């Protein structure tokens, strides 16, 4: 029977749980603007872990990496252009 690599999923799980505790814990501290920033930053790190170690985005080859990057890029376009519109109207 071929053996299974359990180390990578186990370490990823531990990292995700630590980040979850960090984001929940830091949310309880009065850090002002930094609360929102750290919450969002931790979410980005958690999703990166899922993308790299569970979805294997980096191992998927050039086409997969291109599609994943395009998704994030188009999302950034959507946010940037729409936000410019809303902010220019003095929202």
């Amino acid at each position, binding site marked *: 029977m071929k053996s299974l690599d359990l180390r990578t999923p186990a370490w990823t799980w531990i990292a995700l*749980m630590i980040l979850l505790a960090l984001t929940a814990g830091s949310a309880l501290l009065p850090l002002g603007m930094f609360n929102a920033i750290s*919450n969002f930053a931790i979410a980005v790190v958690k999703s990166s872990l899922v993308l790299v170690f569970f979805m294997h985005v980096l191992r998927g080859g050039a086409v*997969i990496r291109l599609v994943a990057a395009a998704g994030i890029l188009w*999302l950034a376009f959507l946010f940037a252009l729409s936000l410019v519109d809303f902010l220019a109207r003095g929202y």
Partner: protein
Amino acid sequence: MSDTTTLPAPAQRELRRTTMEFGMWVFLTTETLFFGVLFFAYLIMRLRYADGFAAASRHTNMLLGTLNTAVLLTSSVTMAIAVDAAKIGRARLCAMLLSSTAVLGIVFLAIKGYEYHAEYVQHLFPGNGFEAVSVAGMQTFFWLYFVMTGFHALHLLIGVALVALMAARVRSGAFVAQSPASIDNAGLYWHFVDIVWIFMYPALYLVARS
């Protein structure tokens, strides 16, 4: 034009696998934009009604939200190991892990359902009966809360059905050896739904807890 039917069987399988994987990634890109629109609406409304969003977010159940995040993150781990098990042909282990993933998905939906019920009883569902009207924007927050978590729950429900179906097919026969690509794709979808929740959790539960 090269005719793919003249390729040897392993090369054909590999071509089919990469095509399926590519298709799933393209689909997930469209899904990113779908959820992106909801997150953008959230961002604009939060900038507009900062106090209302802060007050409304305190009405969500942080303990259950955090617990549910842990449940979903753990389900991604069992899913990832299931995909690896399928790759090396360990069908029984794969079926067991797929079932565990589906069960964790159901646990998430059950906790979410309990939260919905509690929020409904507390008159936090937007509409005529909405009680917490002291700060402007609270109703907008809960409108977004139900739409965003509702669409996420719908995606997860589809994921649970998909993963449960895979588990049944793996258990019934030689499905693992024939087509691990479908299990790969179910995994990619599952992890994507997990990522959506990773962003919803701080956006909805952690706005102003200090």
